[in-house]
């Protein structure tokens, strides 16, 4: 059977992360047709990229995962670069006077490398062994695993899944330069594709998305006190601080906030906040099915599978309208509300809380229909296989 490699920055059961989940799903979907191997780092912590897991091959659910050690942890050096990059690169990303950036490409490489996970072993592996794979799929544009790894594989054999967000780092010109030659691309949403066209200057490729688990929960959570649900990494960068602030304002309305996932932010101790930690899928779906609304306050999302899962469980969803991808999900599905700013967020939460049963059912139904029409596993698998077959069939120019 033909071998297909999937490169992703982290791969482990303990990892919570959108693009990691995506890579694993694609690995699973492709494994019925190809001999899939996941190439990844030994890190599980996406902040430090500490070398944690054993290097080498482990089999996860029948799929081999080959991990390469990370050579260093992210440190003050990178944070210093990051602060300057935020300041200096984006405002001048398109220099007006034709002069180059003060950030030469070598320094941009340095920034990407020290962001982590830096796995020279992976680059060496790809350089020396890419011939053994019929195609190599790279997941997430941002990390060195993709940025340096993809340079070691002939462009006609690569399939890039950028999971691009409109974030400052995306404006580093080296990303656009490096990925320009790698034309086989999979975008999760049309909004992501447009973002790429805007920031990188090209957006060709297929909009494919991700399969969403849609089996309905048999036992929706039932509580006396209505609750808002958030699932995922709990951190300010995901907008969770804003969510807590919004809920604080309406703490007297009898609504509680239930959060699952990893708390990297330090949630305040409030009677109306309930942090459940990591819960399994079944429990997550029960919570979704019983929630007054599912909230996703993050401004930087390239797909948000968890929101689509909530839609599949018929939960009305409330998303940050400043995130184009999420706004598009809402506008196309009619499955809830998007807001602009914290005042509007409070308003939309109260609006969702005031829905009567019939209206809630209508909105929930719209969300479920949207997920079934676009993100059913069979549909995504067929289209993904088609893309990989196309890459395999292509020849070097």
């Amino acid at each position, binding site marked *: 059977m033909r071998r297909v490699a999937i490169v992703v920055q982290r791969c482990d059961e303990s990892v919570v992360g959108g693009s990691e989940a995506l890579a694993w799903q694609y690995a699973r979907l492709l494994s019925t047709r190809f001999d899939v191997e996941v190439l990844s780092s030994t890190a599980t912590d996406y902040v430090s990229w500490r070398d944690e897991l054993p290097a080498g091959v482990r089999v996860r659910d029948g799929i081999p995962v080959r991990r390469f050690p990370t050579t260093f942890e992210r440190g003050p050096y990178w944070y210093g670069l990051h*602060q*300057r990059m*935020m*300041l*200096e690169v*984006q*405002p*001048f990303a398109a220099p007006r006077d034709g002069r180059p950036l*003060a950030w030469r490409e070598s320094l941009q490489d340095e920034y990407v490398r020290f962001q982590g996970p830096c796995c020279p072993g992976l680059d060496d592996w790809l350089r020396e062994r890419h011939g053994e794979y019929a195609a190599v799929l790279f997941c997430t544009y941002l990390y060195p695993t993709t940025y340096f790894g993809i340079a070691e594989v002939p462009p006609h054999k690569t399939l890039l899944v950028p999971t691009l967000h409109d*974030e*400052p780092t995306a404006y580093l010109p080296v990303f656009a330069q490096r990925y320009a030659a790698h034309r086989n691309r999979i975008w999760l949403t049309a909004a992501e594709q447009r973002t790429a066209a805007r920031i990188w200057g090209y957006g060709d490729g297929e909009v494919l998305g991700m399969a969403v688990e849609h089996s309905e929960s048999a036992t929706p959570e039932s509580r006396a006190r209505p609750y808002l649900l958030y699932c995922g990494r709990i951190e300010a960068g995901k907008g969770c601080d804003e969510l807590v602030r919004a809920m604080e304002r309406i703490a007297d309305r009898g609504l509680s906030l239930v959060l699952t996932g990893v708390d990297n932010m330090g949630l305040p101790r409030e009677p109306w906040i309930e942090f459940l930690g990591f819960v399994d899928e079944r429990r997550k779906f029960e919570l979704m099915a019983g929630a007054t609304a599912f909230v996703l306050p993050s401004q930087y999302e390239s797909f948000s599978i968890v929101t689509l899962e909530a839609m599949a469980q018929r939960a009305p969803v409330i998303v940050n309208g400043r995130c184009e991808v999420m706004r598009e999900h809402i506008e196309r599905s009619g499955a809830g509300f998007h807001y602009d*700013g*914290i*005042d509007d967020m409070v308003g939309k939460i109260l609006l969702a809380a005031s829905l009567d049963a019939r209206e809630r059912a209508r909105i929930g139904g719209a969300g479920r229909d949207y997920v079934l029409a676009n993100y059913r596993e069979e549909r995504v698998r067929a289209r993904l296989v088609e893309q990989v077959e196309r890459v395999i069939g292509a020849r*070097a*120019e």
Partner: protein
Amino acid sequence: MNSDRNDEQLEQVRGEIRAAAATLRDRPRLPSSAPAQASGADGIEPARRRYRIAELTDPPYHAFVEHAFRALLKRAPTAAEASAQLDLLGRGASKAEVLGNLRWSAEGRRQHVGVAGLLPRYIVAKLGRVPLLGYLVEWGTSLAALPMLARQLRAADAAISAGDAALAARLQPRIDELRELVHGLGLARDELIRSVDTLDERLRAHAAAAEAVLGDLARRQHDLEGARKDELEFVRRRVYVMNRWFEALQGALAEVESAADRRDAGAREFEARTRDAIASADASRVARLERWSDALDPACVAGARIVTIGDDADWNERWVSKGVAATPLATPRAADAAALRDALARIEDGALAALAVLAFPALLRAMPADEFVAAASRVLRADGFLLIGFAAEPVLAATLAGDAVPAVQPAALATVLAAAGYSTRRVDAADGTPALLASKAAR
């Protein structure tokens, strides 16, 4: 294959570089300069005076603040300044507002960096944050001018952006003035907000003091409540007692009144009975009434009206049989003054052909002569007659019933009538009972 193409590309580049190098020495010699400082890396472009607003607002959060300081103030922010601005953003301020605050700060005005399109956004942002209605009302007039200013400035900014240097030069002083004005208004507004805040503080202090006083009062009220209840009970009992006393008094008075009424009714009855008895015994009465009715005949034709004060049923029947509308009014006792006045007042002006009083002295118990004469003058027609008899029986009956009837001489009454414009003549009855017939018409 790829490598070959790259080699070709590289060969072409080499050719182009050779061509450039061949003419390098022909290029003008650059004026010498110090080596570039790390200003580019720090994002400061000291010479740059104009920015597009999007350049400044595009960077996210932290980078936005850092860049804004470098662009508008030509320096990096201190940690405290950066965190203050981030805090402002965190509290919902727009980027335009942060930029405006920097641009129109004292330092920003010194730097005088132009940002096309910032001012209107800044004004809108500032207006959006006006916190107090009171302030709005007070400053409504000043602020009403702002949209106009904004329009002018937008227009000016647009013109300048379009690169019309001459126009820009002409407009610039005006724009600066307007900006100063807007800034001044902003400062005034800030000052006002501060004053309002102070006032608010004071009001809060007053409210707190008042609350304390009220609390004290409440405590005292609580302390006094028991005593006060006793007092109230005492007063309530007193009121009940007084109430009962008043009721008793009312009862007594009613009793007195009804006794008086009974006595009055008795007196009236006695008077009427006595009068009727005397009259029936009076043989000359018919001749007397005849005489007096004859005297009135010229005026009292059929359809005319006559009012008689006196209790003489036969007198009235006499007139009715002649087709005259005759109205009797009972001989009034002293207590009937009001009723008599009321009865006379109900007669229209100039309605009567004749007004007759058969026992004038008895009338005087209820009404003095001048009042009666004045009333008569009003109700009598111009050719009407006033008949005033001095019949003895009612007077006698009244006297017998205990009522004092004043004595009055016809001559004295004639004087009063003359003074009122009447001419009078005696129409005494055959039995000698005097009577006066008075009229105003000259005959």
